[in-house]
């Protein structure tokens, strides 16, 4: 899901062609992110738009030839000056008098022409890997004819009109493997190939067959120097040192010719805005703020070190409600150990509801977080959530949410940052280590992305690539995490390998993590008197209470319905059955079917008390609910979501170690099967391994040592 939707969109017109634009945010300074060459479109800026639009007005548009803009076949529509006219048309249509204009590659040349011809429209220019008559070409790209057919096509020979027509996808894959050649770039490459496939090779050929102004100029032409000299506004050039498409000598030359600033990114590829989004975001913001001479905040406060109160920023993952409960328990223990500690939470719905109910302070910037739960819901199908791909496709949400975090901590000192499965925090800190400014604790209940079998070779490769990236991060920056806490015991870690030629997950985790034991968030001893608890909750002694709950996100709706369907058969087998279906905070109870003897309730605070009181539960395969039931020694059926590696592998491994629950297959379980399973689990004696109760205290102790 997109991290930020436009506030306005529409079409500009140029020579009767429609150009699709989007406008985000508001404010006196606009940043115009020019589209790339029509091989891609405005979505190339997906990691920039959500962040920049919180601080500026941002305009993007799709190039003629891709996206939602028109795709004429006439090459004359794609000349340099026509592309300048496209930008002006969009600026006019969006009421943008002047802007900081950002151009990539060949489009940096377009920006150059624009700023020279219409100086009053550009108050700043940013060029990424600018193409120019100045500088040198890339030798590897030379020597191949674009027009002559070949017997075979290898490497840059694929940049050929015949190959484009016959093997377009392969060309795209090659092109982007060169454009984004830093390690662990699978998502960026996948995205770019996908956007390339949204146009077709004939249209793309039209763009390169355009009578080309740039192509007719050489470095010796005096008009080139004149074009650059005409630029009046400040210029910033950003170029990857290892760019395989455009030589960094071009970037250097353009910076020299314009008197601009040059930033060379060592280790950087061509598509820096995609592969190094945090750094690029910070550079763009800083540049635009200087251009706008944005009056710095008129009042600032800096607190001397000894006057500062002890503060922690707690980032709790909103995927499901399980993290919230354990984090609150850990926070409580932390406050016993450090009574003067103030905790701010950076969190979003549904976690915020739980936090608010506990009286915790939610940082106001939390409202800028892009919704992870909505994204996860959008990724799910009938009882199916490919968790790994969902997280992979959450990339722009993660960048946005890291930038929200960064905005907070760059101005507000905290002693400690705690991230409970805060993927964006861990990933981007390891990619931008200089942004670490406080002690940092990482917590998780699983280690290792594991491929689903039906994902085949591709998925096996991707999960091992992601795992390898994580292992490399930790090996290179071992002190970035001050604590890595595994919520569980060493035996709870799966027996798999991270990937071929990678370590065993259990061995590596033992070496790199502390084990706190499981953190339930409550003490089961509190429910020792089950009879009294049942009475309090309104459950009669002769009722067989079955609670059906599917977690904090909206994914579980199908399971909820299927179990409700089993109720009549179950009631026949268990005559005193009373089934209570809990819809959770993101499913509307009114959307669920009803039956006699069946109750549907919306969000239930302290659901764990009801689960402790019930006779049997039917749940999804998430860790926190199944472990609550295990700790309370309740019979339960659990249905892991299809394609959800964490539920199918990590959680199942742990539950089997405790000897807890019965795993069901949603794909094959009919309502009658479910009814029969309910009846039979009620009869099975419970012999679970006890769940430790000191997990929160142990975790808090390790964390408190940092304060």
């Amino acid at each position, binding site marked *: 899901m997109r991290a930020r939707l436009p506030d306005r969109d529409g079409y500009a017109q140029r020579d009767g062609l429609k150009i699709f634009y989007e406008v985000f945010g508001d404010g006196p300074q606009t940043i115009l992110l020019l589209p790339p060459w029509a091989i891609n479109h405005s979505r190339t800026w997906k990691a920039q738009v959500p962040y920049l639009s919180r601080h500026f007005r941002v305009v993007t548009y799709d190039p003629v030839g891709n996206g939602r803009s028109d795709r004429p076949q006439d090459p004359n529509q794609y000349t340099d000056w026509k592309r300048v006219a496209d930008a002006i048309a969009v600026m006019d249509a969006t009421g943008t008098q002047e802007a900081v204009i950002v151009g990539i590659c060949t489009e940096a040349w377009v920006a150059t022409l624009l700023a020279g011809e219409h100086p009053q429209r550009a108050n700043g220019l940013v060029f990424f890997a600018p193409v120019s008559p100045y500088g040198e070409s890339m030798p590897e790209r030379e020597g191949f004819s674009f027009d002559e057919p070949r017997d075979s096509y290898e490497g840059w020979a694929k940049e050929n009109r015949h190959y484009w027509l016959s093997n377009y996808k392969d060309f795209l894959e090659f092109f982007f493997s060169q454009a984004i050649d830093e390690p662990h770039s699978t998502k960026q490459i996948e995205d770019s190939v996908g956007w390339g496939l949204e146009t077709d090779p004939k249209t793309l050929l039209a763009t390169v067959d355009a009578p080309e102004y740039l192509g007719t100029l050489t470095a010796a032409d005096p008009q080139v120097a004149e074009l650059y000299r005409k630029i009046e506004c400040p210029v910033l050039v950003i170029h990857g040192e290892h760019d395989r498409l455009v030589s960094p000598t071009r970037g250097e030359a353009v*910076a020299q010719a314009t*008197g601009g*600033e040059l930033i060379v990114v*060592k280790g950087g590829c061509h598509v820096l805005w995609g592969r190094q989004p945090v750094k690029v975001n910070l550079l763009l913001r800083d540049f635009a703020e200087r251009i706008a001479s944005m*009056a710095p905040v*008129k009042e600032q406060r800096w607190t001397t070190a*000894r006057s500062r109160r002890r503060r922690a920023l707690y980032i709790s993952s909103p995927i499901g409600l399980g993290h919230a409960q354990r984090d609150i328990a850990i926070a409580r223990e932390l406050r016993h150990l450090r009574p003067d500690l103030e905790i701010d939470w950076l969190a979003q719905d549904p976690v915020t509801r739980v936090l608010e109910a506990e009286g915790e302070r939610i940082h106001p910037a939390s409202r800028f977080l892009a919704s992870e739960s909505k994204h996860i819901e959008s990724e799910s199908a009938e009882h199916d959530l490919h968790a790994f791909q969902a997280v992979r496709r959450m990339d722009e949400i993660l960048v946005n949410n890291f930038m929200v975090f960064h905005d907070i901590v760059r101005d507000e000192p905290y002693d400690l940052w705690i991230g409970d499965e805060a993927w964006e925090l861990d990933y981007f800190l390891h990619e931008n280590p200089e942004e670490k400014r406080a002690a940092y604790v990482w917590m998780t209940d699983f280690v290792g992305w594991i491929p689903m079998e039906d994902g085949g070779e591709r998925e096996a490769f991707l999960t091992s690539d992601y795992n390898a990236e994580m292992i490399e991060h930790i090996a290179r920056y071992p002190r970035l995490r001050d604590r890595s806490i595994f919520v569980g015991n060493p035996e709870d870690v799966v027996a798999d390998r991270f990937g071929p030629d990678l370590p065993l997950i259990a061995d590596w985790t033992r070496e790199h993590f502390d084990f706190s034991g499981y953190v339930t968030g409550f003490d089961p001893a509190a429910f020792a008197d089950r009879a009294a608890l049942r009475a309090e909750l309104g459950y009669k002694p002769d009722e067989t209470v079955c609670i059906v709950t599917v977690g904090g996100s909206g994914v579980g709706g199908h399971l909820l319905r299927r179990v409700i369907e089993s109720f009549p058969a179950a009631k026949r087998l268990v005559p005193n059955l009373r089934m209570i279906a809990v819809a959770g905070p993101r499913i509307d109870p009114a959307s669920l079917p009803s039956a006699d003897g069946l109750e549907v309730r919306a969000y239930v605070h302290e659901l764990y008390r009801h689960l402790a009181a019930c006779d049997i539960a039917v749940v999804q395969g998430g860790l926190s609910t199944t472990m609550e039931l295990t700790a309370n020694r309740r019979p339960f059926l659990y249905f892991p979501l299809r394609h959800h590696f964490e539920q199918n592998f990590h959680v199942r491994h742990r539950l089997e170690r405790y000897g807890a629950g019965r795993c069901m297959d949603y794909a094959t379980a009919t309502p009658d099967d479910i009814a029969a399973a309910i009846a039979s689990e009620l009869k099975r004696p419970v012999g679970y391994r006890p769940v430790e109760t000191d997990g929160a205290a142990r975790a808090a102790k390790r964390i408190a040592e940092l304060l």
Partner: protein
Amino acid sequence: MRAREPDGSGYVENAGARIYYEVFGSGPKTLLFLPTWSLVHSRVWKLQVPYFARHYRVIAFDGRGNGKSSRPSGAEAYSAQNFVDDALAVMDATVTARATVAGYSMGGLHLAMLAANHASRVAGAVFIGPVAPFGAKGRPERTAFSWSEPLPTSEGWAKHNKHYWKRAYDDWLAFFAGKVLTEPHSTKGIEDVIGWGNETNADVLIATYEAPESPGEPPSDLAQAAQYYARIACPVLVIHGSDDEVIAHSAGAGVAKATGGTLVTIAGGGHAPHLRHPVKVNILLRRFMDDVAATADRAARSWRTSQSTPRGLRAEHTHTLR
């Protein structure tokens, strides 16, 4: 030993005094550190000068009444206007057309006069714990005591008194240094202030207090003062400690408000943030210099449009991944 020796130094005569100045570093942008009350001299900026001298041209001079400048006698010699004219004389002597200027405490009042009345010389103004017409006039334990009348007591702020200065200068000096630097663990700063205070004497300081008011000074009427400070057109930064016991924080806040500048409050900080929190002040001041430079560049560039002079590379950075 000093962390940085001057690259040049000299004397300039003005209004009956001989003013000693030092120049450090080089470059197109100059940062001028004004002297403050004659209790101390240019060494009060010792924690700023070495850093800024690596990035800009820096000028510091000793105010009349202390350091290597002369100590003219008579109250008239110590008018605010004379201090302002001393600054202009130093700028002229060092061929400095324009500078970003920093003023601390009493120097903050002189800076306001410079920026309001000589705008073409001031590219940016940084006020640190400034004396100004705004805000609370001081804590009750201070305002309770007259400076000029003999007092029956010599406890606390009663020491800040003309007659006590004459008879027990050292005792007052130790007391006052402890009020400039009120935060824990400030012994070195306090020692330094006492040392600098011992380079002058009670007669000089009395003269500074009895100096006649200058016509160019900001008016004490608040509404008129606001108009006066509003004339300051250059970028302004004000840094003031929340717990300043010499000049109330509200004075600096008033300067920021009247000039439209930025106020940075040092929460928990006292009267000399540049001595007690030098790193933070250096970072704030550096950022301010860069912002001022950017503003000036833009102004210069739009003027240059019709000239089409080629520009060289302005800055080059290398950011290294992992």
